[in-house]
């Protein structure tokens, strides 16, 4: 434990989280807060996706299904059962995790491309189901009334609370990723990622590990989805299960460097900055997807290790400092 405290990465996580808290507080900067909130969402999605792609080597194209289901569960609990936000978000996370665990036992029998296809199928299937599911408003979705903000002390204060909660979830995501990476569990996962059969022969309980990591990578994104859709006070199938968001998370992971701790987070912040710059620039607002795609194509073709892979090759010592 003491040794862990001496590792710079841990302090980096704390410092970044604190910076996210303090930056917008100075001068009550609401515009900055909104930008950082979005960045935090991307960091959460990318970091948790990295648990699957980077550590276990399983490509999950439908990771947004957790985000959307978490959002739906929370908004529904708040709207129809008057649950307080935090309790609803936590229950949403727990339920989605459980669902992911059960799904995982089934679809994780598949490997490589077959698994990737199944995750697309799961996302689209869930989207189509929710669009027909009357208690959740079908394709029209659910609207939250302004009263939902009352327990948080009105909308103005509520938005700040949601932001701090989101930053907390981001910090926890990074910590969880750090913890898993340095634990025996993480070692087992990376063994699976490199050669699953060899890992199995050497005694890694592959089936359980895979289901566990699939379920773990669902929890915090679901909580983030709960907070995000509570904040927008509206949720509909097309927003909640948007495959484009899944892809953007993949781009972020690849940009920063899959399998590293810092990489996906850096990639996420960079991608969010790029995206918002493009969105505000008149000439480019329609070409956001084109640029993300071109970026992804270039990374995959020429720098498959991403930013961190490049840094490690250039300065091998950085491997110990930035994990």
């Amino acid at each position, binding site marked *: 434990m003491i040794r862990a405290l001496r590792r710079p990465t841990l302090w980096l996580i704390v410092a970044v989280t604190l910076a996210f808290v303090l930056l917008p507080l100075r001068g009550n900067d609401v515009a900055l807060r909104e930008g950082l909130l979005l960045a935090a969402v991307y960091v959460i999605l990318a970091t948790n996706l990295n648990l699957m792609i980077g550590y276990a080597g399983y*490509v999950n*194209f439908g990771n947004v299904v957790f985000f959307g289901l978490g959002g739906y569960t929370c908004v529904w609990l708040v709207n129809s059962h008057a649950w307080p936000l935090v309790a609803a978000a936590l229950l949403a996370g727990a339920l989605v995790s459980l669902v992911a665990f059960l799904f995982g036992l089934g679809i994780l029998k598949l490997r490589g491309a077959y698994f990737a*296809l199944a995750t697309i*199928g799961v996302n*689209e*299937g869930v989207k189509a189901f929710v669009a*027909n599911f009357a208690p959740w408003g079908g394709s029209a979705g659910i609207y939250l009334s302004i009263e939902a903000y009352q327990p948080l002390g009105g909308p103005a204060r509520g938005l700040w609370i949601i932001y701090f909660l989101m930053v907390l979830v981001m910090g926890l995501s990074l910590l969880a990723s750090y913890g898993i990476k340095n634990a025996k569990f993480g070692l087992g996962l990376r063994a699976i990622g490199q050669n699953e059969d060899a890992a199995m022969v050497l005694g890694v309980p592959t089936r359980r590990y895979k289901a566990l990591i699939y379920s773990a990578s669902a929890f915090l994104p679901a909580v983030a989805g709960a907070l995000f859709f509570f904040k927008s006070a509206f949720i509909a199938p097309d927003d909640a299960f948007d495959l484009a968001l899944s892809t953007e998370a993949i781009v972020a992971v690849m940009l920063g460097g899959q399998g590293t701790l810092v990489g996906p987070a850096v990639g996420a912040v960079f991608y969010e900055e790029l995206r918002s710059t493009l969105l505000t620039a008149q000439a480019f607002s329609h070409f956001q*997807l084109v640029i993300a*795609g071109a970026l992804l194509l270039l990374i995959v*073709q020429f720098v498959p290790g991403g930013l961190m892979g490049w840094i490690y090759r250039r300065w091998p010592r950085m491997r110990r400092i930035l994990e």
Partner: protein
Amino acid sequence: MLGILVSIVDGVLVGSVYGLAAMGLTLIWGVMDVINLSHGAMIVAGMFGLFYLVTLGLPAYAALIPVLAAGFAVGVGLYWMSVHRMIGRPPLMSLLATFAVNMVLIGLGTALWGTVLFNVPVSLPGVAWKGYTFTGTHIMAAVATSVIAGLLYLFLYRTRLGKAIRAVAGNREAAELNGIPTTQVLALAFGLGIALACISGALIATLFPFTVLSGTAYQLKSFVVTVLGGLGNPAGALLGGIALGLLEGLLTPFMPVSWTTVIEFGVFVIVLIAFPRGLFGFLRHARSR
């Protein structure tokens, strides 16, 4: 009762066109172990290709030939641009590379055309039968599909080039040792797969209105079909398409259209988990034992 039968027959006619797109997907997978996530974008490219050729005054079914040729050329280009460097690398990389191409194309498409509904006006007399009508375009699409599938079969089994493709699919190293230029064959197979996607898109455009974003839905249908037929098995893909059409036709009279998607994906995931070599692959395997 008769109504259900008509609905099933119509479903099979349309399903065969899905099978055509899936044949392209499965050909690419079988030859180079790449799942082409830009298939949907190429289906849409075929739709728009047909739309503009028809606007220029070409008859719709004659315009299929230039669409096929252009699709092949684009496919070979895409191979060199995105797939070539991915051969033999982990599946993640080729998935991401083709996905990136998809993002670029769909992004360009939405920027150029928005998400407005397009429609290719084709009028063919239908076939009337006991008070029901089989739509002419649906019959014609199924006929065109059979012709193309037949030609593909002849190409793969009766020509040297087709045999080379099958040899590379079977064992790339052995094919290389026997003097087959495997890289060119891979490019050829990818071009062929994309051409099939484009032509099925063009045929779908004669059946239904479409938008730039329609590709996603048809790409997902191709996956369902491919998985039903077994990845890497062109004949299975055609059968899978017909099976999917049959399912759609069977379900339509009984439930709202929006529920069919739920059932399709349910079937997709279950078949994928239970019979990863495909429903037909599974049956064949069971019989040969």
